[in-house]
């Protein structure tokens, strides 16, 4: 056992884990800043400006505030589930980063069922919401939790089915190989990205991803005007911070998955000296993920909310048949060519 720990691969693995985990946590903190700033500018107000230049130290101030707030547990709440729910929500959200390729060799583990692993882990994240709402022993969280988890498991279907077209094209479930299959170009100039081959699947995936992460316009389960705050009404201080972190981590995970499936992951034009070429794939990957994050925040600031029955009807009667039709058409085309 000792010689396993000191082997080079193990040390490399630990370094990769620390780098990816640190990067993700930093990105999560500054994602909150980005969202507040961007939403504020769209609504013609400045946003956080006081704490540091352009409000850049605001996430640190928020973290300290969460640490020092009083940790309230409602008296009739189910103590064990109440404390366990944010943890159950956070662990799957962070675990899915272990199979995402941030660069040609920058992946913690390359499972050969990596795509299904991410779907399995995100489907376990539903429990955090359900248990958090139920354990709070109060009506707003319970309703919010029920609605939110029903919405999540409904849109998981179209999410999973919409990437099967990509699976048929790439012929593999491993994420790094899906990225590698998009690494070349047509006619030397158009990159071989799956978004050109599967446009409908891309649209279905993006809409299902927004619904899956409980963001506007699909956030009736946690909306301020309707349900106080949904399933995290009774939570305070660090547990609330964990719920928020898990929501943003889910956002980054589905955006990363969207770039891997449809926008070619870390592939992009390579130029410059050797040291630049080592970090350039990761830069391209982060840029593409930021595209999706910008779209998320933009949509949040501009689009009104769906009513709950409209939401469920849309998921089951529009997105699901569309993704099934996409599978049929894609399998036809792949079988012919």
């Amino acid at each position: 056992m000792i010689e396993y720990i000191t082997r080079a691969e193990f040390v490399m693995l630990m370094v990769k884990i620390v780098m990816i985990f640190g990067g993700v946590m930093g990105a999560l903190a500054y994602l909150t800043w980005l969202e507040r700033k961007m939403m504020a500018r769209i609504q013609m107000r400045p946003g956080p400006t006081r704490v540091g230049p352009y409000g850049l130290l605001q996430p640190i101030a928020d973290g300290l505030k969460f640490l020092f707030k009083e940790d309230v547990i409602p008296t009739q709440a189910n103590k064990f589930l109440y404390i366990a729910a944010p943890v159950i929500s956070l662990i799957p959200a962070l675990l899915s980063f272990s199979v995402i390729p941030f660069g040609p060799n920058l992946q913690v583990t390359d499972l050969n069922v990596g795509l299904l692993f991410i779907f399995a882990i995100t489907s376990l994240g539903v429990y955090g919401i359900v248990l958090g709402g139920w354990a709070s022993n109060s009506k707003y969280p319970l309703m919010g939790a029920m609605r939110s988890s029903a919405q999540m498991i409904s849109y998981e279907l179209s999410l999973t089915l919409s990437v099967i077209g990509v699976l048929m094209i790439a012929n593999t479930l491993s994420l790094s190989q899906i990225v590698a299959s998009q690494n070349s170009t047509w006619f030397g100039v158009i990159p071989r990205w799956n978004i050109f081959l599967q446009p409908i699947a891309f649209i279905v995936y993006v809409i299902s991803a927004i619904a899956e992460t409980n963001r506007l316009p699909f956030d009736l389960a946690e909306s301020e005007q309707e349900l106080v705050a949904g399933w995290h009404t009774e939570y305070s201080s660090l547990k609330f911070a964990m719920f928020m972190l898990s929501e943003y981590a889910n956002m980054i995970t589905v955006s990363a998955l969207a770039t891997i499936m449809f926008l070619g992951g870390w592939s992009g034009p390579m130029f410059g000296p050797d040291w630049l070429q080592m970090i350039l794939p990761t830069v391209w990957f982060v840029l593409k993920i930021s595209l999706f994050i910008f779209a998320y925040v933009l949509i949040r600031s501009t689009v009104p909310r769906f009513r709950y029955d409209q939401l469920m009807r849309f998921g089951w009667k529009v997105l699901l048949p569309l993704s099934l039709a996409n599978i049929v058409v894609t399998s036809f085309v792949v079988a012919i060519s």
Partner: protein
Amino acid sequence: MIEILFFFFAALAIGAAINVLVQKHVLYGALSLILMLTAVSALFILLRADFLAVIQVIVYAGAIMVLFVFVIMLLNLPVDEDGPDRLRWLKFLGIPLGLFFLFLVVATLSNVEGGAAAQARITGDAEAIGRSLFTDYLLPFEITSLLILIALMGAVVFAKKDL
């Protein structure tokens, strides 16, 4: 190394299953069952059936158990389901007999000729299972789709308030 993993997940599975038995409130039982399902999924990975392991988490722990948890929360009953105490003297007889039965089972199964791994190692990935499903087992595959349709119709009919 792999034995440590096996014992850990086996102990987790058995402990979670016994916890389902012991808990009074059925919601804690359902949560322990989720833990047992993920432990069994880890054992599947040790047996090189990684596609099945992930499918088990997605389908069993992620969908079926969500259904169970929903229904338990919907029919929110307090814990007072104590039947008549007919099992009073059975408890004294049950435990020794149960232990004897367990000993019988372990003794019988220890004599199974379990050797090393097979000559042809299978890779439990999606391609192998898919190939087998669509060639050798095509008829059962199509019949299961019919089965799911029937289950869907049955569930809707039974749970409706007014037909």
